[in-house]
């Protein structure tokens, strides 16, 4: 029997972008999966957020779009080419900033030095309104929390198994995620994901009743990226920059030691990018101007 259609997983950018493992399968035509730090196997995903900007990197006849879509926890990087006609069409019609929903397949890029980037190859892109986006946040929070709770239980068990987690009342998908997470990311801290859920839910509450125009595109970016942190991060970037710029990964490591979490860092760099203090010559590299 043919494998059924892959489910579109609900994951926040913070969880998705921190993925460091993929599972290409051994069977012929096996789908490609990214395994997130919480152990969610993602082949297809659904997310909604603010289209921050889009760049046409192709030519008039064969357009290619690179787009950035922010959810309250981070940014999804989206690349649409000629084999995604619906997505190309929709992206060319949408003007940032605007709220969009995207269904897409995972896309991975591993650099020579082993750095892993997870981005998205969109299948369908469509405009959404605030209630739609809010429902996605609620749904994604629930699925994410389900994974967090199963993982917490699994981590406190001796020799955790899927069966033992099912017995504790976890769903099968959450139990499977938890075991996978322990296998691939044992000991990893996932507080930043829980913080991400909080931020996302607050976005819903704070944004209640507002129209898209009234909403700042990335509401919490300005708030948290205080001048202090910004200065510090800029300093690190300068310090770590070689001729070609600084690796995002290295900046992240440096920041970890200073108590700047992943989300704050991403927001700060976004702010620095917006201010034109730094730029991103290629994905994963930040260079001061």
């Amino acid at each position: 029997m043919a494998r059924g259609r892959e489910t579109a997983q609900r994951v926040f950018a913070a969880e998705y972008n921190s993925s460091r493992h993929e599972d290409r399968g051994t069977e012929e035509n096996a789908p490609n999966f990214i395994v997130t730090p919480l152990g969610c196997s993602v082949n297809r995903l659904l997310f909604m957020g603010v289209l921050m900007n889009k760049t046409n990197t192709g030519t008039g006849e064969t357009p290619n779009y690179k787009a950035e879509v922010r959810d309250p926890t981070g940014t999804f990087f989206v690349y649409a080419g000629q084999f995604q006609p619906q997505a190309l069409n929709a992206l060319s019609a949408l003007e940032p900033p605007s709220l969009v929903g995207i269904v897409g397949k995972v896309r991975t890029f591993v650099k020579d030095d082993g750095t892993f980037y997870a981005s998205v190859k969109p299948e369908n892109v469509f405009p959404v309104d605030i209630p739609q986006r809010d429902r996605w946040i609620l749904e994604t929070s629930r699925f994410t929390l389900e994974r967090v709770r199963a993982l917490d239980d699994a981590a406190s068990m001796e020799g955790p198994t899927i069966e033992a987690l099912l017995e504790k009342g976890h769903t099968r998908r959450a139990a499977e995620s938890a075991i996978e997470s322990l296998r691939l990311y044992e000991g990893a801290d996932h507080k930043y994901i829980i913080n991400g859920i909080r931020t996302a839910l607050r976005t819903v509450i704070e944004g209640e009743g507002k129209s898209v125009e009234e909403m700042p595109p990335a509401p919490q970016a300005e708030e948290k990226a205080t001048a202090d942190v910004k200065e510090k991060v800029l300093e690190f970037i300068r310090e770590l920059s070689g001729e070609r710029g600084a690796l995002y990964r290295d900046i992240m490591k440096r920041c970890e030691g200073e108590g700047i979490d992943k989300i704050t860092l991403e927001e700060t760099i976004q702010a620095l990018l917006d201010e034109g203090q730094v730029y991103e010559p290629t994905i994963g590299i930040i260079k001061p101007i």
Partner: protein
Amino acid sequence: MDETQLAPVIQEIRRALPELGEDRIEEELRRYLKYGIHLQEAKNAILRRFGARTGASSLGPRSLVDLSGGESNFEITARCLSSKERLQNTANGEKTMVSGLIADRTMIRRFVSWEGHTIEKGRTYVIRGASARLFRGEVEISLGAYTTVEEPKVDPLADLDVSKLPRFGPLQEVKLRDVRSGMGNVSVIGKILSLEEKTIETEGATKKIHDGMIADDTKKLRFTVWSAFLHNIGDVLRIKGAYVKEWRGIPQLNFDERAEIELLEDIDFKVEMSPRLLAEDLVGAGATDVEVAGTILEVREGSGLIFRCPVCNRALSSGSCSMHGEQTGFADLRAKVVLDDGTGALFAVLNTEITEHLLCMGVAECEKRFAQEEKRLVELLEHKLLGKRFRMKGNVIRDDFGSTMLPNGIAADEEPYMDHVMELISKLEGS
């Protein structure tokens, strides 16, 4: 060809396929060698062809209960409970098919032989070189060209009492939501919603059966009783020992006098007319009359304005029907979509009425306005559907490509969400 190399290979094959015989092995080997095939390759080809696992010998004796479908070249000792011969037309001409039921001390299973093995009711046989496969969800013992059937001198199953044997595997206690086709021996609790007596013809005789609907608080299923049935609509029953078949991917319970039926007086169910299920529950098994809520993620090809064959109603493709050739079709509207709730993905086909309602336009008007620009109509449908949440009610059928919902009604999912958000965040802040 060095003849001395042949002998050890023949012996090796013989160990793996003892029923094949030395002469036959040599004959087969020489046939391959004549085509310039290497000896090792020829050996592996023969082992695979005659059902041995490469390099491995026969799996040895097995009990019927241990088989899961997929094993080959094992041995069983079993008594034949029923057997009938039938001429069947196949691609290779007319063949005699022998099929029926066999039992050992563990259970009863179906067998089928395409090679005219002599298997008679009431006799016990040692069957060597058989294989097990899944057919319509049941494990079936398959007897092939290289299966031997032999009657032992002393019947080791002379004292076998088949009346207590399960028809299929170990008893599984399940909710109706988790019933899957192919399950052999389930225990369920449910309320009889409808019941009908029918007379059918089977093997030349007429037989009275009952069928109806049974439900618990998770799902409704159709059931068929193949023996006397003394219960009524509204009764809540525990049925132990039912087996599950399917129709269009929707599981159906079957049971007969082997099943243990108990009337439960102090249990009742709140039976929803269309119980809400998750997509993951429907990916493995279809259903009648359920509700699913999810997000529409794709409007698929074949949506919008279509033209149907006036003879058979099939959708025409480029003005041509797959059965009746070129036709002048009549216009119709439909939308084929993907509904995904994060636990699973279902296909759904929205019928004429639903699609007209979505577009606020009838078929005739659509034909007038969009006949020249069908793509625009699809874009309009995408605009109405993509990324939006809907609740759909109806039947879910299942085939090799996945589960398909055929909704008889859909509604935008406008359940308020702010309270849920508040509740979730207060739980999070508290922890």
